[in-house]
């Protein structure tokens, strides 16, 4: 119950951050990715602010065994840098550059009632589902 409420609140604050920062607007994101044209460096400030604040959170979490709500703290344990990590990230980057949407902003735009976001999110879920199917067959 509390975990679900905390998740809801975290999602909400995250989404508000995406709206306030301008990242929920694909044209703004593409303005950042367009270093060869008129470049809008705003997104770098989003990253800087987000990383600075969350670093404090992870430092505090690193000193604890359990979360404040009593559950375990589950952080990724993978260490190796492989073809999946790089290849997957490159594919993601191409998709990001094509439409200016990454997963968070796409979900926020869905909430704004953008029909185009619905198409993007639908295709994204299809892609994620495709990954699940391929993984299960391996």
């Amino acid at each position, binding site marked *: 119950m509390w975990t679900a409420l905390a998740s809801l609140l975290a999602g909400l604050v995250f989404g508000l951050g995406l709206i306030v920062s301008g990242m929920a607007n694909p044209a703004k994101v593409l303005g950042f990715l367009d270093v060869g*044209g008129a470049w809008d460096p*705003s997104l770098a400030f989003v990253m800087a602010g987000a990383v600075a604040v969350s670093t404090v959170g992870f430092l505090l979490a690193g000193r604890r065994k359990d979360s404040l709500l009593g559950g375990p703290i589950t952080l990724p344990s993978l260490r190796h840098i492989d073809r999946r990590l790089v290849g997957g990230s490159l594919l993601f980057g191409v998709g990001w550059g094509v439409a200016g949407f990454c997963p968070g902003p796409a979900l926020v735009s869905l909430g704004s009632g953008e029909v185009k976001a619905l198409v993007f999110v639908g295709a994204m879920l299809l892609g994620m589902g495709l990954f699940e199917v391929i993984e299960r067959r391996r």
Partner: protein
Amino acid sequence: MPTIDWPHFTPWAALAGGVLIGLSAAMFVLLNGRIAGVSGVLGGLLRPMKGDVTWRAAFVLGLVGAPLVYGLFTVLPAAQIDAGYGTLALAGLLVGVGTRYGAGCTSGHGVCGLARRSPRSLVATLAFMAAGFVTVFVLRHLLNL
């Protein structure tokens, strides 16, 4: 040297939004002990496991509900989506497959991963940033799309 798009450059709003995103990630790991990575949280819903669905769905609901809550207080800023439906579908597919193979996106690797000083996330972030820059350069300046 890139030409700065001064009229669209909004450092303070960007920083304020970034602080909120960082606050959310910090809150998420401290309260729930999890990484606030949107693709990971969403992707996990596609292989539902007992006790693992509610917090994921709640986080997604929060994201989708953010514009509604924002709209209660002030006018929602207009978003501009120039891509057509076919392009959006292709992009969505690439983002869906790519973020799952790469185990993260701008939030999981770009924000949380960098905050954790994870070398894996640094490599992933550099890879998707580079791919994004190159893609936009090719589409806008080489193909003039």
